[in-house]
Structure formats: C-alpha cells, structure tokens
C-alpha cells in the first residue's frame, strides 16, 4: 500500500510536467496553476498518507521496496526500476512535497508576468519528480539518475531567463560542477558494484561490513560518495556554483537552492551511513569539510549586498552544519536540521522574493531600507526566519543547531573542533542575518524613496510566507533537548544504533545551549549596533579591515583560482590542440603523406624527360639493377 502510494507520489509531478511541457502553445494561467500546483498538492497529500500509514506500523516494519520491472540485466548484474519507502525517504518526501507545494503556490503569483509561465511550472514539476526519484530510488543507479535529474532541473531553472548571459553562465557552471559530483557518485557505484556485485541498496548495505572496517575500499567509497554530496550540497571546494545560481527566479532559489536539492548531500550520507559507519576517517573528513564550509561561507555572507546572495551564502553555511553533523555520525541531528532549514530558509527566500517583487527586481541592499512599513508579510516571514536561523531559543533553528552542536561535542577531538567552529558560525550567522534584516526593513528609505511605492503581495505569495514563517517557529518542536526526540526515534530504523552513532547527552546540551544562546544574542546585538541603531555607523566604519573584507567580498577568490588553475589552462590547452596539434598531428598525417606522394610524383614525372636516349639509359640502369638483385638473391639462396 505504502509503495503503491509512493509510486503515485513520484509519477504525478512527472505527468503534469510532461503535460505542461508538451502543451501546444501557452495554456491559460489557470490551467497551468491547476496542473502545476495541483499535482504537487496531490503528491503532498499522498505523502502524508504514506507517512500516516507507516506510523501505523511497528518501528521495524516501516521499510518497503517495490520494483516496477527489471530495467536491465547485464553481465550478471540486475538493476530494477525500484523504490525504497522507509522513514528516511518518507521524511524527505514530506519536506519536498510540503515545502514544494508552498513554493509552487507562491510562484503562481511571482511568475505571473513572465511569458514563460508554463515552462516555469513544467520545470518545477520536473524538479519535484527528480527530487522524489532521488530520495525514493531503491538502488544506486536510480539514485544517480535522480541526482542528475535534479541537476538538470536546477540547470533549467537557474537559466530560466535564458536571454541573460549571467543566468546562462551560472546555469552552465552549476551543471558542470554537478557533473563532477555525478562522476564521484558513479565511481562510487562502480566500486560498490565491483566489490559487492550489486547496486541494490539493501544488498549493498548488508554487504558493506564485509569490506572490513576502515579498509581502503570503504574509505574510497565514502570519499567518492562525498564528492557527489559536496558538489550537490555546495561544500568546499565545490560550492562556487550556488551563489551564482541566484540568477534563477526566487522561488527556484527557495525550493532547489535552499530547501531541498542542496541538502541532497546530507540525505546521501545518511542513506549510505552503512559505509560511513565503517570508516572513521571518512566521517572526520566529511565533518571537517562541513566545518570549514560553514565558517567560510558565513564570513562571505557578511559582505554581500545582494539580498539573495546573502541568503545563498547562508545556505552554504547552514548545509555545512548538516554535513558536519552527519560526518560526525549525528545522522538524526543532521536530518532534523535539514528539515528545520527547509522551513526557515524557504521562509527567508520567499520573503526576500516578496521584497524583490515589490521593488521590481531590485536585489541590492543598498537600494533598500525601512521596508517593514510597506511589506508586513515579508517582514513577518523574514523576521521569523532570521530569529530561527540565528538560533534564538524557541525557534526551529535553535533546536536544530543546538542538537547538531550538542552531538558534536560528543564526537571526539574532531567533534570538539567542529563544536568550536559551529559556535563561531552561530555568532556570524546571527550577525549577517540581522544585518540583512536591519538594512532592508529598518532604517531610512534609500535616497529618493521608492518609485513607485512597493506593492504588497497578494495571497498566493503571502500564504506560503506566513505558513513557512510559522513553521520556522514550531517546526523545531519535534525534537527538543533533554529527551523529546521524535526525529531520532523516527529515523532509528534507518540509522540503527551503533558505536558510530553520535547523540547529544544532557551535559553537552547544557553547555551548548548556554554558549550558543550567548553567541546568537551577541551576534544580533552587534548587528543592531552596526546596522540597526545608527545607519550611518557602517559607513563611518567602512575603512575597517578593508583588505580581509575585500577577500571575503570576493568569496575567498575561489572562482578566480579555479579560472587560473583549471579553466584557463584547459582552454589554452584545447586551443593548442586545435591550432597546433591537430594540424600537425592527425591532419599532418594526411598533409604530410599528400606532400610526400606528390613530391614522389613530381620526381617520377621529371625523370620522364621525353628523350628516348634517356629512356635507354634508364633501361641499362634497370638491367644493372636487375642483375644485382638477381645476384644477391642467388648469393642469398645458395
């Protein structure tokens, strides 16, 4: 029953996407909305049904696989088109379809004036389908397919406004970096296939322990999986595509580049924890990468003036927390944060979208200020989101981040390091988020005021912002410190209980709560001092630390380094191949042979002088040669 519903959940967005894509001409907006949004609503409703259905089962009876047909059978390996419904995938389904539905609703208004309304919803539906495929896939092959399909949807939506060169370039960058991730994943699959002879989740995870704890093979599998995860989840050093991805429409940023797709890496590691449990080194590497990412991205977020870029870097940073958590073995904490983040980051993005929409595509903080009296809904959404992400007690982000950090403190030396980084990150998070809030919604209006005045959103956009704002508050109450662990309990059948699993204890909870609350409030306070209380102050302080801030502003110059190290040399090498090697080598074989034969032909022609006496001479020479050849043969033969 559960699997049948899950198949429908999976297929409905696909069908509506295909119908929309194949619709001849541009359908009326109402039709597009009905198909585009209705399909996601159906999926959400059915996901809830699946969830309720599983709830009714015993905890150890919540995992079902269903195979549609034998997709291929090749050289002894069978790959079925199959799905796996278990607590983890159901949780992801709920997030994807739930948040997805809200954002679709929001898009109905946001994209209203765009001439490619239908194309937008078709792509969004394709995305939801792909994301569902990613989380529902029952084997590594279809995981990779879903993995790539979300990349494709992401590509299509980042480059939605294809006339803009910046959007086109961003889309390509995102795609190519994700292909690098795909390659990691594919290689991991090859390794699993070679070592375990299967691509099926169940068989692979069951056989994982046979590879030996901490063996090189397990480490390689984990690191290759992590390459895929890092590319999709924008972890250092594969993070550079995400900020550029903000070229896409804001709902896209909210759904794909904040709430769902970028957290796929977290999902992947939790899904494949059977491997990660076997290799402490792999886990530590993952955790450290997450920690570095969260800190680095937080510093960059401090400097951004584009409202969406602040949020983008914030996303990188927040996903860093999750990756750190799952790297350390705190799978439930990571998933908890994934869910909470989906709520508050979606709220933030949608609120930012309201602002952008109201200001006619203005995205610069320098052209904002005092918006709270125009855009109450956005102010609510943004405010709730900021409080949540900053980790103010009672809000979703507080509980999630606390859960992660408290677990980290139990994760050994690396865990302590991560904890410290996380705490610093928490401070920075509060600082940059409230910088955004204060600069956009407080203070004076930009010089010259707003022409025309910002218009508030209608209900299509308002409802999702409000709902997500509320979820940013209440969403965290599923897992509270000191014993209320709904998420962990739910995921227990998946993550299992083992020595590698890290969970918070009372002591770490206490320490973490105290320190992180102080940090969060400190950050908010500093933000108020810098940006809220006196808008002139930041201009007066502009000279401070100009150099490091420039580096942060340039996002630590990863792009430039990649250009210098990979892109430009590659391009030059290709040019050398095209202009030098190709003409000299493969073409040279031809031109050289032609020249040689032509030269020989000229020689033959010139020997043909037309004079009969010369011919006689050649004949005599020929006789001599023939004599020599014959003599040699006779000498050799005897």
């Amino acid at each position, binding site marked *: 029953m559960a699997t049948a519903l899950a198949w429908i959940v999976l297929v409905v967005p696909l069908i509506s996407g295909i119908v929309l894509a194949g619709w001849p001409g541009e359908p009326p907006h109402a039709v597009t909305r009905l198909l585009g949004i209705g399909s996601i609503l159906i999926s959400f409703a059915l996901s809830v049904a699946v969830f309720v259905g599983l709830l009714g089962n015993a905890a150890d009876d919540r995992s079902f696989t269903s195979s549609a047909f034998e997709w291929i059978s090749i050289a002894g390996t069978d790959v079925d088109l199959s799905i796996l419904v278990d607590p983890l995938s159901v949780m992801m389904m709920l997030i994807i379809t739930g948040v997805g539905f809200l954002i679709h609703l929001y898009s109905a208004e946001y994209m209203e004036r765009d001439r490619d309304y239908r194309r937008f919803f078709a792509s969004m539906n394709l995305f939801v389908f792909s994301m569902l495929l990613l989380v529902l896939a029952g084997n590594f092959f279809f995981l990779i397919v879903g993995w790539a399909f979300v990349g494709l949807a992401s590509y299509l939506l980042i480059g939605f406004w294809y006339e803009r060169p910046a959007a086109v370039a961003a889309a390509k960058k995102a795609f190519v970096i994700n292909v690098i991730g795909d390659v990691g994943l594919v290689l991991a699959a090859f390794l699993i296939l070679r070592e375990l002879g299967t691509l099926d989740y169940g068989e692979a995870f069951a056989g994982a322990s046979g590879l030996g704890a901490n063996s090189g093979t397990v480490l390689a599998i984990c690191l290759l999986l992590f390459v895929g995860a890092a590319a999709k989840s924008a972890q250092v050093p594969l993070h550079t595509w995400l900020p550029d991805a903000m070229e896409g429409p804001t709902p896209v940023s909210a759904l794909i580049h904040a709430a769902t797709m970028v957290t796929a890496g977290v999902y992947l590691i939790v899904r494949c924890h059977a491997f990660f449990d076997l290799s402490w080194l792999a886990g530590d590497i993952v955790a450290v990468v997450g920690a570095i990412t969260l800190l680095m991205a937080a510093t960059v977020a401090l400097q951004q003036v584009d409202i969406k870029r602040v949020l983008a870097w914030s996303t990188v940073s927040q996903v860093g927390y999750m990756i750190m958590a799952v790297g350390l073995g705190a799978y439930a904490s990571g998933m908890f944060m994934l869910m909470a983040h989906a709520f508050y980051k979606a709220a933030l993005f949608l609120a930012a979208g309201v602002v952008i929409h109201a200001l006619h595509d203005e995205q610069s903080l320098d052209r904002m200020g005092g918006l709270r009296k125009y855009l109450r809904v956005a102010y609510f959404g943004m405010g709730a989101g900021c409080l949540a992400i900053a980790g103010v007690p009672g809000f979703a982000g507080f509980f999630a981040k606390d859960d992660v950090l408290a677990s980290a403190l139990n994760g050994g030396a690396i865990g302590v390091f991560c904890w410290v980084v996380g705490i610093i990150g928490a401070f920075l998070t509060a600082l940059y988020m409230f910088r955004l809030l204060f600069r956009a919604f407080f203070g004076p209006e930009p010089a010259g005021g707003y022409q025309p005045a910002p218009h508030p959103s209608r209900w299509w956009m308002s409802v999702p912002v409000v709902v997500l704002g509320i979820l940013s508050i209440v969403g965290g109450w599923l897992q509270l410190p000191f014993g209320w662990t709904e998420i962990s309990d739910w995921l227990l059948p998946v993550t299992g209980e083992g020595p590698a699993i890290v969970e918070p204890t009372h002591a770490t909870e206490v320490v973490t709560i105290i320190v992180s609350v102080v940090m969060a409030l400190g950050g908010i306070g500093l933000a108020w001092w810098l940006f809220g209380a006196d808008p002139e102050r930041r201009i007066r302080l502009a000279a401070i630390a100009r150099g490091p801030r420039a580096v942060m502003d340039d996002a630590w110059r990863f792009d430039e380094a990649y250009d210098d190290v990979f892109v430009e040399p590659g391009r030059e090498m290709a040019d050398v191949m095209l202009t030098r090697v190709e003409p000299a080598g493969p073409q040279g074989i031809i031109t050289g042979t032609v020249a040689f034969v032509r030269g020989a032909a000229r020689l033959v022609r010139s020997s043909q002088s*037309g004079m009969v*006496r010369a011919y006689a001479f050649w004949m*005599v020479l020929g006789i001599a040669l023939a004599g020599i050849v014959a003599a040699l043969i006779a000498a050799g033969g005897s």
Partner: protein
Amino acid sequence: MNVPIEAYLMLSLALLALGLVGVMRRRNPLMLLLSVELMLNAGNVSLIGFSRLWDDPSGQVFALVVMVVAAAEVVIGLGLVVAIFRSRTRLDVDEMSSMRG
C-alpha cells in the same frame, strides 16, 4: 677450326655493350638504329656460338629469324625517320620530345 665458346661470348658481349653505349650516346636517329642492329647481332653471335657448342641447328635457325626481324625493324625505322625529319634540318632524336612527364 675450333673457336672456344668463351670467344663467341666475349665478342657478343662487346657488341652488346657497344650497342648499348651507342644507343645512349648518339643523337642521330640513324646511328641509333645502327646501334640496335649491333645489339641484335650480338645476340646472333652467341646463338651461333651456342649452336656450335651444342651441335644443334636450332640456334642457327633462330639467328636467321633474328636477321629477318632486324631487317624489318630497320625498314620501319628508316621510314619513320624520313617521315619525321623531313621537315627538319638536324637529325637529333632529342628534339623528339614533345611528349614527356
């Protein structure tokens, strides 16, 4: 009189060489034809010699045939020379090279 076969061979070889050199060196078409005659007769000399060596008449028959052929060739050659060089003052085969390459 018993001439050794080596003598026949030496003579015929000399004639052959002479003919070959003549063909290569002389420009006058008539001299060319003469050189060719020399070479043919070189063959004849060895044929006769071997005929004597093996005491077999067919070599001599062969030589007679060669003579006939030689005569035929000279006749045609002279005719052609006349036809070609009728309009020219110099008898030089090197001028006969309108086709080459």
